[in-house]
């Protein structure tokens, strides 16, 4: 399996389900899971195709709540 360029980890409990990361991800691999709520009652974000992550960190940059950690494959 091809190793992706980047990988993202979500601290779900900090997420407020605002959807900015979903909007600004250039490879469109993020989506809001309308079936899963965190403790604060927000629908959290999941990654649909992690191997397509390019590690651009646009999602993390746009996230107002520092939910996302982005790592790149060196």
């Amino acid at each position, binding site marked *: 399996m091809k190793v992706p360029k980047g990988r993202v980890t979500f601290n779900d409990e900090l997420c407020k389900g605002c959807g900015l990361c979903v909007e*600004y991800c250039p490879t469109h691999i993020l989506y809001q899971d309308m079936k899963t709520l965190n403790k604060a009652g927000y629908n959290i974000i999941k990654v649909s195709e992690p191997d397509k992550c390019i*590690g651009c960190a646009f999602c993390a*940059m746009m996230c107002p709540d*520092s939910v996302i*950690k*982005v*790592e*790149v494959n060196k």
Partner: protein
Amino acid sequence: MWETKYEKSQGLTDTKLSYCPGCAHGIVHKLVAETLVELDILDKSIAIASVGCSVFSYQFFNCDAQQAPHGRACALATGVKRVLPENIVFTYQGDGDLASIGIAETIHAANRGENITVIFINNAIYGMTGGQMAPTSLIGQKTTTSQDGRVAEVHGNPIKISEMFATIGGVAYLERVSVYDPKHVINAKKAIKKAFQYQKEKRGFTMIEVVSTCPVNWGMTPVDAMKWAKSDMEPEYPLGVFKDKGAE
């Protein structure tokens, strides 16, 4: 081998931000926090929190802080910086705090060239108190105190803070930025970093006006609010550098 490219800044505390989902405040907090860490000034910094949605910013910035009365942040900042000239002092204010009740304190701090940095969050509305009209609200914008839309003859015109402050001699760096997409976020960070760098170099008053959003009181989703910041706010509040003493 995985290397961290982006994670939560040490310049922020562990306290969960109290802002609404998708509010630009959170983005700007990160940019300021990252800047203080990267310029190695976090442990010398004193944040002056204002009154508005960001009244709790003293809980979020990982440095010493003072909580100012509404509009007075630049006066507190002046009071601190004059007695602690080697510290880094910054205010974080919304459009009500800075452009309405606090306009005199802000103008005069700028005029005296106080070596402070002002982060000005312009989202054209009073968020904390439930969506009243701000000095920066757009003509026609419906708010709880301009329910049929802002009318120039009755409510005055939107105040252009960056344009006004560009004429003040004590201003060393002044840029209006936005955070409505990643490219603008990157540029906003550059601007904020430059402002704090100028403070380190004691060049005078620095201010970054950030065209921001208020999804809840604008009645939009966070994504649509970012789009409105670009389509409607930016034409009224053009982005760019309004003054740079370092470039003169």
